[in-house]
């Protein structure tokens, strides 16, 4: 427990940090009705507020009609967000695992380099890293005459996986450091090599400890994928703006449109958060 807390491992958020197991059950049942109320309120405003609207090209639909009409497209965009988040998470976790282990390497240069890389990518803003990848990576890669196109969304995946990599590295390091040294010593006395000890003794025990912060990170990544709209990847938020333009750019539609996006993300991320909290309680290391 102590090492787990001292290592600046699961640092990207506040979820359950330092919270104790006997916390009172929080009544969160209100969250959903409240969001729905916000959605309905904005719809109502939009319905009554037509005086502000500019002359629309298309025949004027009510807000519910508009949302109903565009929901399939927006949900398609949301799926694209999920694809980006899954891709970035896969790449970031794969590389981050090695980065985390490299931070505990016995070779000093490897250790120092892994630490520097982790610190840089953990402390730089996600949006800037995304910009850097989208603008600086080539739009196609040429390998032995074979031209592989490298579209914007693939660059976005790379852009998101950089901070994920650093954060996963920290999660791995924190988890490995939280394993009691007795485990290492017993593995050693049983004749395991360092690699074998990692593979068969240490890492399997780490998975439990890494799962909650990893899921936290996934939820954060999913919410960050909307940043890709800023650099022009056609995900949910980009499609939202386009849908609004197609409806004649009625400004009173923007609130319900974005409220719809918010609700989608909430419905996806809230259960993940609850599940994470549950796992955190379940796997909590008793002192």
């Amino acid at each position, binding site marked *: 427990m*102590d090492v787990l807390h001292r290592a600046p491992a699961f640092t990207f958020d506040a979820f359950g940090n330092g*919270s104790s197991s006997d916390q009172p059950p929080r009544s969160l049942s209100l969250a959903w009705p*409240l969001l729905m109320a916000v959605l309905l309120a904005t719809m109502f405003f939009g319905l009554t507020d037509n005086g502000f609207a500019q002359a629309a090209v298309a025949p004027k639909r009510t807000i519910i009609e508009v949302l109903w009409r565009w929901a399939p497209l927006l949900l398609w965009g949301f799926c694209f967000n999920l694809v980006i988040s899954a891709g970035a998470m896969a790449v970031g976790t794969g590389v981050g695992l090695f980065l985390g282990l490299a931070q505990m390497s016995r070779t000093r240069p490897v250790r120092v380099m892994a630490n520097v890389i982790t610190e840089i990518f953990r402390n730089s803003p996600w949006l800037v890293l995304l*910009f850097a990848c989208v603008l600086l990576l080539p739009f196609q890669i040429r390998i032995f005459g074979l031209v592989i196109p490298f579209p914007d969304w693939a660059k976005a995946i790379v852009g998101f996986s950089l901070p994920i990599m650093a954060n996963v590295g920290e999660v791995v390091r924190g988890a490995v450091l939280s394993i009691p040294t007795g485990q290492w010593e017993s593995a050693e006395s049983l004749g395991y090599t360092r690699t074998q000890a990692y593979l068969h003794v240490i890492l399997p025990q780490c998975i439990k400890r890494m799962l909650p912060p990893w899921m936290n990170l996934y939820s954060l990544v999913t919410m960050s994928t909307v940043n890709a709209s800023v650099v022009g990847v056609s995900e949910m938020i980009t499609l939202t703006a386009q849908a609004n333009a197609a409806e004649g750019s009625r400004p009173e539609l923007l609130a319900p449109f974005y409220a719809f996006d918010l609700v989608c993300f909430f419905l996806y991320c809230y259960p993940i958060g609850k599940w994470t909290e549950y796992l955190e309680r379940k796997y909590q290391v008793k002192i």
Partner: protein
Amino acid sequence: MQPVYDWFRHLYDTTGIDLIFIYDNFDRARTIKGFFITLELSVITIILSLIIGVVGAWLQRSHFVWLRRVIAAFISAFRNTPPLVQLYFFYFGLGFFLPRVHDASGQLVPMFSNLQWAIISLSLFAGAFNIEIFRSGLEAVPSSMVEAAEGLGYSRFQIYRQITLPLAFRVCLPSLGNNLVNLVKTTNLAYAIAVPELLYVSQQIWSDETNVREMMAFVLCAYLFLVFLLVALLNWIERVIRVPGVGHMEAY
């Protein structure tokens, strides 16, 4: 400073490394301005989010069930939705429904500027996290402290202000620090609603000069600098307000 500017111009002429935001007067002025807007955005949102956190954590211990539920709903709504969409929702969505007001020169302008919307939105976002952080800190304060204070005749508010909050603050300082660092890194979302902060200005410069690589490196360094500044400040605060026996390090 002229020799320095000349040297960077010379660097560009000889090597092609175009650090125009140093040697060009116009670009330097707007870069500095952008940096200070980022700083302003960071400082104000940090302060506001801390206020939201302290007040929210107090309200969360209220006797009124509905007040507690509203706070819980606020926390989970803001924690589980993307900050960028929150920003869009506030700026484009709600901004449209607010009345327009007359500014100093008598013109009709929106009630909140884009910078103000960014401050509001980001403060609420980070504030929701801060409430949770303070709550976990408050839970770590031993109940015997509260009982002792009650025995000494402190009121509920006095206990919160003078006993539990100061102790909780020391306990949760590490996770609070992480959240504030995150907040500083998130301020550049204001780019999306055209607040002329550091990233926005840099984007303007690299669009004009096509020196994306140099500007990108500069932006990253500037943010790393800001983050390290904040971390150093937090470490200093942690050292100054340290009470032996309270906090996370001494406990182990």
